[in-house]
């Protein structure tokens, strides 16, 4: 029961406390307006280059943009404790680490899902993308799985953030790599082999493909393999992220570097 309380109530409380910078003055420019313009940018580049359809870029970029809240919020939900001088208190508390760390991930997943779905709907309306209404629940589910798997990657960034000060730079670089490698704008088979190998092992790639297939009329069953793969990738990244957090916590104690900032 205590673990559940730490997971749900602790997670939401920590999120509200640490992500207090996510006021409307930041949320609207960065998580409402910017994803819409990212999508429009690539739609028009696609038209200019004469490749793919508008729908390809709308879905690819809407799902890929879930990575911004996943990476930035997840990193800050843990590494942000250091800036507020509270990290040491968290790490000496007897609270179970699994609910403590993963509880902070839950609001991140919800936020990422909302950002992605909103930008998908708005740009879909602006550009007149024709996605059957029956496909939306399945697309919503795919985006939820994508948000979860990318939050796993965010956990790894959070762990790195326990030792590295420049988390904003780190998160931006990872966002850029995801933009290139997930196939949000370029079909994976256009990449050289080594890039395809990376693409198939990172979050979002399979979710983007699944969302595109569903929008084209595939059923949830048809893309279940892709969703399962995305979920499995998310589980692997979450486990690695959790273990990395424990290792960093241990190393911080050993080196007395918890408040390194």
């Amino acid at each position, binding site marked *: 029961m205590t673990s559940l309380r730490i997971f749900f109530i602790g997670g939401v409380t920590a999120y509200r406390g640490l992500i207090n910078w996510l006021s409307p003055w930041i949320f609207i420019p960065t998580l409402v307006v910017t994803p819409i313009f990212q999508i429009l940018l690539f739609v*028009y580049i696609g038209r200019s280059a004469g490749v793919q359809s508008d729908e390809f870029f709308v879905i690819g970029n809407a799902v890929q943009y879930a990575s911004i809240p996943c990476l930035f919020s997840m990193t800050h939900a843990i590494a942000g404790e250091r800036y507020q001088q509270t990290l040491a208190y968290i790490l000496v508390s007897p609270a179970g680490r699994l609910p403590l760390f993963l509880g902070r991930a839950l609001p991140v997943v919800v936020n990422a899902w909302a950002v992605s779905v909103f930008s998908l709907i708005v740009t879909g309306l602006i550009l007149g993308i024709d996605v059957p209404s029956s496909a939306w629940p399945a697309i919503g589910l795919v985006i939820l799985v994508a948000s979860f798997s990318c939050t796993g990657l965010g956990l790894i960034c959070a762990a790195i953030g326990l030792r590295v000060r420049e988390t904003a730079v780190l998160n931006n670089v990872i966002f850029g790599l995801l933009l290139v490698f997930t196939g949000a704008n370029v079909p994976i088979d256009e990449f050289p082999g080594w890039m395809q190998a990376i693409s198939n092992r990172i979050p979002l790639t399979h979710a983007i493909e699944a969302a595109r297939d569903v929008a084209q009329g595939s059923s949830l069953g048809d893309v279940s393999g892709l969703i399962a793969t995305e979920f499995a990738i998310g589980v692997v990244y979450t486990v690695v992220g959790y273990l990395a957090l424990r290792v960093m916590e241990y190393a911080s104690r050993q080196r007395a570097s918890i408040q390194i900032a």
Partner: protein
Amino acid sequence: MNALRLIYVGWLFQFKQLSRSSFDSFLAILWPLFFATVAFFMFRQGGNPDALIYAGLGAAVMGIWTATSVAAGSALQRERWYGTLEILVAAPAHFSLVLLPIGLATACIGIYCMVTTLLWGRVLFGIDFPLDEPLAFALAVPATLLSIGALGFLMAVAFARYRTAWALGSMTEYPIWLICGFLVPLALLPNWVPPISWALAPTWGMNAIRESSTGGTPFPDIAMCIVLGAAYVTIGVLLTNSVLRAARAKASLSLT
């Protein structure tokens, strides 16, 4: 003469400071490379070599705006964090002489981005950039930098009352990339967009760089770029007076 010296010293100081910030220099250089890479793949897939050159030059200039948008937009907020804003405002020199070098320095960081992106396109994607009019190119690049720096200065003043100016600056990144024709010809955009683009100096700077590289008539574009840059500086100076007057009257300079 004092004003010019202040602009030069301010620019040098800010340029050195920005060059040592991993966010404002390292990331500003790397960030457009991700978008350039995606654009290169897309245009290469399209199979038109001329389009690849078009995209390569556009991606190179994108970096100048990237370096400027967030850093210049949040210039005043940064001074607030450093605790130097009130001191700078109270200094005998006009405050615009403090802000203008910040805008120029952020734009000049874009030179790193420009060179890196051109090299990236050349080495990894084999894009052979032509240089039809070297003299015009040599004029177009500084004209574009100065005018984008002037736009950054205007943004810095316009966002003076916002605590989260960096978010507003960041928000302008994609729209400017899109409507200034960096990667997309203006003719492809809806009819109501090009008039907005024409009021933005980066549009003319981009045209000038492109035409001096691939051939055309870059000089009118360079002139238009300089005229618009001068207009931004004039508006920025007038706006600085008004913003400072309001901040003094309401005791709201520190936004605390």
